[in-house]
């Protein structure tokens, strides 16, 4: 379906849509978070994007190609620059450390076209944002977008401490009436029950932050009568490390060992096999792959497959899911 149809009238050469960029600025925001700004090497404007969109950043770490998604946090109306904020994750698989330690102003990199899996529901009478830590980034772009079209919004932002409150100053300066900040170290908690009570009919609630916060907000909302369709969350899973396993790629006639620190998708790409993806976080469905044969246990970690599809053992999302067992053969 994604390839060319048998009756194709289309030309055959199509490359993945990528943008060649140069790092134009690096700003340390605090001990954990650094902002990276990019400009296009050809000097052109970036594609327009909508608040909540992410880009997949391609990093060449020696021999290893890393592809990590980050929310675009710059103003969607300002297209000479794209900006992302990267939180250093010392326990992660190394992408954020690479950005923090190796990337310098002037370096050339590649970004994917923007993809949005966390859009504003423009029907909303009011947009209520709840952010935790680095989860603030998609909201920064959404707020700018709403300001441009006169949207009604309110932000509740929880950070560990004033030292680690990325963008707090900017938000409280420009939007003092719409922004509330809460610091963990001062024992300030978002009073969620109260916040969710009395919001105007037609309000939409958005939450982005640590998994615990997302679960808490969604659960509280449901318990107080908010329908699911009015509660949105950015659920991006970084691939988790796991035990190495072997996989056979039937169409490519190749076998590969997936390392403990790499994802199945990355292992496939390492062999030079073209595999589709958009989010690399188990959310978009683009990487869905047919399993031709297997003997073992699937570790499904995506939000895409239906439960019965997961149980069937006929599909896997290689960007986040893994496998433990003897045989895994994919139609790739």
């Amino acid at each position, binding site marked *: 379906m994604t390839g060319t149809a048998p009756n194709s009238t289309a030309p055959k050469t199509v490359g993945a849509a990528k943008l060649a960029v140069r790092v134009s600025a690096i700003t340390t925001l605090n001990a954990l978070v650094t902002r990276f700004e990019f400009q296009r090497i050809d000097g052109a404007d970036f594609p327009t994007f909508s608040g909540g969109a992410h880009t997949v950043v391609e990093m060449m770490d020696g021999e290893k190609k890393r592809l990590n998604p980050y929310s675009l946090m710059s103003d969607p109306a300002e297209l000479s620059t794209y900006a992302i904020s990267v939180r250093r994750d010392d326990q992660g698989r190394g992408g954020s450390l690479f950005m923090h330690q190796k990337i310098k102003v002037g370096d050339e990199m590649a970004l994917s076209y923007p993809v949005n899996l966390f859009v504003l529901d423009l029907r*909303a009478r009011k947009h209520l944002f709840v952010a935790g830590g680095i989860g603030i980034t998609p909201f920064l772009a959404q707020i700018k977008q709403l300001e441009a079209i006169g949207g009604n919004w309110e932000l509740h932002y929880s950070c560990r401490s004033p030292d680690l409150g990325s963008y707090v100053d900017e938000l409280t300066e420009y939007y003092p009436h719409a922004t509330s900040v809460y610091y963990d170290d001062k024992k300030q908690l978002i009073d969620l029950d109260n916040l969710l*009570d009395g919001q105007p*009919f037609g309000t939409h609630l958005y939450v982005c932050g640590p998994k615990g916060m997302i679960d808490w907000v969604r659960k509280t909302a*449901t318990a107080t*009568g908010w*329908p699911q369709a*009015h509660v949105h969350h950015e659920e991006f899973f970084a691939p988790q490390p796991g035990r190495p396993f072997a996989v056979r790629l039937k169409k490519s006639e190749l076998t590969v060992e997936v390392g403990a620190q790499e994802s199945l998708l990355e292992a496939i790409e390492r062999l030079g096999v073209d595999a589709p993806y958009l989010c690399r976080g188990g959310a978009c469905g683009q990487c869905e792959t047919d399993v031709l044969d297997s003997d073992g246990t699937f570790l499904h970690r995506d939000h895409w497959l239906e439960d019965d599809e997961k149980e069937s053992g006929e599909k896997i999302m290689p960007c986040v899911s893994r496998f433990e067992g003897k045989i895994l053969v994919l139609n790739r």
Partner: protein
Amino acid sequence: MSTFEFPPSIRSRPVYCVLEARPGKAHLMIADAEGAEALIDLALRAPELMAKAHVIYIPKATDFGAALNALNPAQYYEGPSYSAAVSRIKRVFSDASMGLQIYLSGTEGLMGQALSEAMQAGYDHTAIQTEHRGSLARRMQCVHCKGITEDVSNDPFQCSHCGLNLFVRDHYSRRLAAFQGVCIDAEEPGNVPPSKELYS
């Protein structure tokens, strides 16, 4: 018995459920005619809802008003017709907060129109519960003149506005709260099959 099992149909045709109590800060219940029975059943299963309930009821030719009132809802209104009640319904939505649960029961026409009002107030339709009771008559839009004919229970029927002979489709518009009526004799004017009762 006021319940009816609709035969399987196309994907645009609404399907109805049995109302279930859901957590909420307030509960809006709108019903017409035998729809009252669904609210009474709900209140029997979840009496705790009623202290925070606003009931809006259009009896048509039935007599469930006293029984509904006896459920002791926080607020109770009885109106002679949907058109008489609609400005009140709009007002309820404009004053409402998130956390309101909406329960609709009775005819397809009533449920459809109240649901469309809630949508226009910015509420997602998937969050609204609907339970069909009573008449199987449909609210029909004439696709040609756009006029709505209420309570259509025969197929084909005559558009009450432009007079064309229309057949009754299952294609349904949530926004219009109506099924679609299309000219049946366009290719052979005057050849109109005898009208049959719906689902007969």
